[in-house]
């Protein structure tokens, strides 16, 4: 029973961190209608951006998250402007956005190698103390994990406020809901696409740095979590931001609970089996509405 409670706590905390890049992935899908796997690369570059600010410039780790957002956002806009937007433009109406999705996989490899070229292969760590777990009764909780989850929740709240209460956020939602109508209303789709891409890149960068806080930093950081990020977004329903959050918690808790019954080496497989179950019952994902 305690083991189950501990697995749920671990899963929820892991899910909160996973939710940040999952929101980034789903935001791009909502506004630009394609799966941008380069989110993994944005997370990696973001994590390094924050690392430079934290270790080279001496900025404390939490304020250095701003550097992670900036690096992730700039990388995202640069990749989109250089390659992905052109590929999207060439799609025929109704055609599945396969070419930009594949190009985004290539962009991830490129960004990973940019990180490797600039910072090398060796693992790096943030200038951040490591604390022993707190014991709440029989449950153990890491202070850093709690802090990461809190930061993730603040970032999610900030995104919801941005989407709900700013003009740029509302135009993004308009484009996501009905691109044709948004164009008729004179909304500049390219500009909105850029804002969405920057916001998503910034979130991915933030997520990358949060993952780096609890692990270490190397060029494969984003790539390692990409499968779980994609799974979270798909389970929640591609294009749905609340869905991505729910999906991240389901994947996080599912993977941890799996370790109670099977060898931990198989936990990824069990997580994906859970995804198959969800998608068999609701093909559009939990919060999906557009039959994606």
């Amino acid at each position, binding site marked *: 029973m305690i083991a189950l409670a*501990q*697995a749920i706590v*671990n899963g929820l905390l*892991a899910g909160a961190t996973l939710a940040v890049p999952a929101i980034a992935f789903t935001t791009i899908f909502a506004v630009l209608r394609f799966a941008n796997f380069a989110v993994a690369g944005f997370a990696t570059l973001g994590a390094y951006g924050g690392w430079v600010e934290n270790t080279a410039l001496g900025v404390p780790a939490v304020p250095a998250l701003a550097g992670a957002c900036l690096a992730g956002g700039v990388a995202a806009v640069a990749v989109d402007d250089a390659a992905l937007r052109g590929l999207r433009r060439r799609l025929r109406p109704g055609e599945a956005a396969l070419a930009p999705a594949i190009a985004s996989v290539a962009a991830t490899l490129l960004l990973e190698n940019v990180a*490797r070229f600039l910072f090398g*292969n*060796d*693992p*790096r*760590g943030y200038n*951040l*103390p*490591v*604390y*022993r*777990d707190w014991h709440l009764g029989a449950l*153990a909780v*890491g202070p*850093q994990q709690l802090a990461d989850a809190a930061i993730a929740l603040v970032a999610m709240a900030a995104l919801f406020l941005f989407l709900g209460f700013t003009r740029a956020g509302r135009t993004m939602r308009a484009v996501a809901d009905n691109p044709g109508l948004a164009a008729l209303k004179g909304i500049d789709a390219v500009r909105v696409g850029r804002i969405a891409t920057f916001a998503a890149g910034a979130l991915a960068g933030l997520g990358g740095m949060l*993952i780096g806080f*609890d*692990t*270490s*930093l*190397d*060029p*494969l*950081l984003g790539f*390692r*979590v990409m499968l779980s990020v994609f799974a979270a977004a798909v389970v929640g329903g591609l294009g749905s931001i609340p869905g991505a959050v729910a999906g991240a918690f389901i994947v996080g808790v599912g993977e*941890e609970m799996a*370790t109670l019954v099977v*060898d*931990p*080496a*198989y*936990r*990824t497989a069990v997580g994906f089996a859970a995804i198959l179950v969800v998608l068999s019952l609701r093909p559009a994902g939990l919060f999906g509405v557009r039959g994606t």
Partner: protein
Amino acid sequence: MKHGLTRRAALLGGLALPAVAPSLARAAEPIPIGTLLPLTGAGGAYGPSMAKVAKAVTDEINAGGGVLGRPLGLFTEDDETNPDSGVKAAHKLIDINHVVAICGTWASAVTTAVAPVCWQSKTMLFTVSGADSITKLPHHGYIIRTQPNSHLQALRVADFIAARGAKSFFSLSAQTPFAHDVYTQMTAEFAKKGGKALGDIIYDASKTSFRTEVEKAVAAKPDLIFLNAYAPDLGILLRNIYQAGFSGPRFTPGYAATPKVIASLPKPVTDGLLSYAPSPDPGSPGYKRVKEILGVEPDPYSCQVYDHVSLAALAMAQGKAATSQAIHDNVRAVGDEKGVPVTDAVAGLKAIAAGHAINYSGASGPCKFDAIGDILGCKFRFDLVKNGKSTLLSIS
């Protein structure tokens, strides 16, 4: 008497030319030799220095006149520490570059995947991978391993743990071809010393947290936790173990406890970390040469790849043929106990040219191999992290 070129002679000469020309061209043509290294991925901390050493030793051999009058042409590929990429790169080296040998494969999973490609094409494979299963493959003599196999390593590790006074250990292992075997062999050896293995968890190294795995290990209350990890996951494990409140000794292979991993973590997390590694021979001229090439204390794999290229060159010279078959047939002959002792390839090539038998002993130590290609005998070094720095405990 009429001299000059008759039409018949001219015709014969013309026919003979194409037959002569390729052999003339081949004489100067480089002998292609390959390295397949973990330039990126989990072994990325070692690949680049291995590549540098392989290049330097090739250059030295070429500056000394090459092998059988031909220079070596080095082709380096990245296996990305990934079996799929390793197999693709091996095919490129064998089918396109026609290399006589592939040197330096590092991860056991990569070597296991690449080995059949090599033996089926009768190309020699020199490896630094430790998994027992590798030399048990039906490789027909086309694998030479300079790293002690995992069985030998497991015995030494269990003896060391027992000598440190631990009565029990728990093992956390990355999913590798040797993880299960090492645990079983350690358990048996440790039991002989009166110790008890409390359990083994094989984890998925692609995850970003191992809290659940570590919590299970700590709950078993072991005296020592054995981390059969690679560098990227070791950092996460050490962090999670510290967070879980475990203060006892942690023990890991030296290839995981790289200086960069230790430097990337706060001192309280790494202090007390023990590591082991098959030790090159620090007193040997070959070791000193590798140290000169790299400018730092060399890792065991850079020393071993120095020996791979040297052994390939010497075996070809010994067999008087620039072929993989010559390496296959002569790689043990260049370690002849009765031969002239040599510590580098250039001196060895000269001695062979002068008609002497040679006894090559390189940067990683004496290069003697058993019938299935395993190295015979090897020293181990044990290190302890103190105040954020790895310090040598012993070499034995």
